[in-house]
């Protein structure tokens, strides 16, 4: 049973689990879908998060206690729902150890746990990898779930689809930076992220993607329907690229010819729990079957 609590007189906050698990994320996603489908009058915002979710409402339209009761009723339904998600898997090219995040991380060395190593060297070392190359293989090998979109402007939180012992864990910076390049691929705790815009940040910086994920002017070809690229439930596969491919992709984005590689897939949590690597192989097979 989830924990329900009010955020003032306009929000209900529901904690499915204190810890991050794919099970909790699935409950959060199916609950928020159920709330959307129910079309409850007075509900104004439906925000899924990693292992929790939040509903904003207008208490002049629906009484807080009535909405609470309605959500609890929906939870009973969501618990019986198939743990299956029709979604998409997307390839995100990443130029690891790029010069721009390198320049930035050198500027903020005094805020870091290990001033004598780069962020990715530090992450590789504390996770037991004997080289940065092997660490990049792990970071880009298995796919990731977009378990939350937020903080600012379409920023995705990504949760690694491996069993817990293999999960990468890296603490955030000791003190947040005041600057992070736009489209930095970052890491904090057990989440990867992609910084959608330039700004402050506390996540470790591993590389950069040439692919914009937020465009308020909607000039980027694949963002002209909507300015935000990601939604919760998307699956991401990182692909390491070199400087030449990075520059080529940037030029394609500018020319309006860059098309993110993606495929529609059906994800079953039960299949995944039974065979993680086999399920991931099938997902990536769908992405790379042409």
């Amino acid at each position, binding site marked *: 049973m989830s924990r329900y609590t009010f955020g003032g007189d306009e929000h209900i*906050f529901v904690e499915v689990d204190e810890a991050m698990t794919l099970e909790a994320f699935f409950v959060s996603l199916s609950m928020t879908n159920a709330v959307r489908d129910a079309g409850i009058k007075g509900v104004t915002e439906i925000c899924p998060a990693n292992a929790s979710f939040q509903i904003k409402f207008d*208490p002049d339209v629906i009484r807080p206690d009535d909405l609470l009761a309605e959500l609890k009723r929906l939870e009973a339904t969501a618990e019986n729902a198939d743990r299956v998600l029709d979604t998409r898997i997307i390839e995100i090219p990443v130029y690891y150890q790029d010069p721009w995040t390198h320049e930035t991380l050198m500027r903020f060395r005094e805020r870091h746990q290990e001033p004598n190593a780069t962020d990715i060297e530090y992450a590789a070392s504390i996770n037991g990898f004997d080289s940065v190359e092997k660490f990049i293989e792990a970071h880009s090998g298995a796919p990731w779930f977009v378990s939350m979109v937020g903080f600012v402007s379409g920023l995705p939180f990504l949760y690694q689809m491996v069993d817990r012992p293999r999960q990468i864990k890296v603490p955030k910076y000791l003190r947040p930076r005041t600057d992070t390049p736009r489209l930095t691929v970052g890491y904090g705790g057990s989440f990867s992220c992609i910084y959608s*815009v330039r700004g402050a940040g506390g996540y470790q910086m591993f590389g950069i993607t040439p692919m914009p994920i937020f465009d308020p002017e909607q000039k980027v070809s694949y963002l002209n329907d909507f*300015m*935000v690229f990601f939604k919760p439930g998307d699956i991401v596969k990182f692909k390491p690229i070199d400087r030449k491919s990075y520059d080529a992709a940037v030029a394609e984005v500018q020319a309006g010819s860059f098309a993110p590689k993606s495929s529609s897939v059906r994800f079953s949590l039960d299949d995944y729990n039974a065979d993680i690597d086999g399920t991931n192989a099938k997902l990536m097979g769908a992405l790379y079957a042409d």
Partner: protein
Amino acid sequence: MPINVISAGIATTIQDLGRPGYYHLGIPMGGAMDRLALRAANLLVGNDEGAAGLESVFVGPELEITEDAMVAVCGAELPPKVDGEPRETWTAFQVRAGQVLSFDFLQSGARAYIAISGGINTPPMLGSRSTYAIGALGGVNGRAVQPGDTLPLGNGADARKEGLSVPQKLRRGPGNAAELRVLPGLYWHRITEAAQQNFFADTWKVANEADRMGYRFQGGRTLEFVEREQPFSAGADPSNITDACYPYGSVQVPSGTEPIVLHRDAVSGGGYFMLGTVISADMDLIGQLQPHTPTQFVRVDMDSALTARHDRTATMNAIREALS
């Protein structure tokens, strides 16, 4: 015919009532921090309540108005002047084509709302003209107002008489010591009973980091946490949680030291515990608090929060009636 911006003060942004509906993507509702003040200013000049106006912080802009217009300034006591001649706040006044609107020193409050008949008519994004600089949305090309900008005006304001004024008893500013009512909840159970009492017993002060994203407070005792083994994926600090959504008005206290109340341009989520939420009736007030203002958090329950909300609506309705 536009408004020519001669100077922009410290931070002057275009704001309306915001863009709800995109918080699940990290795009906050934004809009005027003091919504009642913006609504009142718009009503005074004959605009729709939700028309876009200017939100000025501490220091007013200097604007050349290039067509005859009705203007009103509500919220902070930031006395307006027309070609150097003083005008009243909370009161409609006429500005003739070519005259310059400027401001005297701030007397109280923090944010003044300047409504001009017709409303500012910059292009809306996601349904709002409100400036959200982090996401480059709304405003003037996604940013605050700068000297040299020209701001287009809409048309369609109803005729209003000069001198129309919001009755004194319906204006609200902060007292010397502000009181913010808080409904405990969210991760309230993470701090000890003593810390729960101290939070409400101590007098806090508004810190310098006080902006549209959030208001930071200092000076109370450090909050002690209930011991636990941190859950998987929550950070190591006892104030960390598995990254979650943040309600508007929620009070997070990183490391238990300085509470931050998130406001209209809130980050939509993150990894800090929250002990409760400032009630909706008191959100406007936060936008009028200056740094160093002593502030008392006052514990309330849901019934009191809803009563306060109804009182606030009644005040707004009384303003509507007085100005109709």
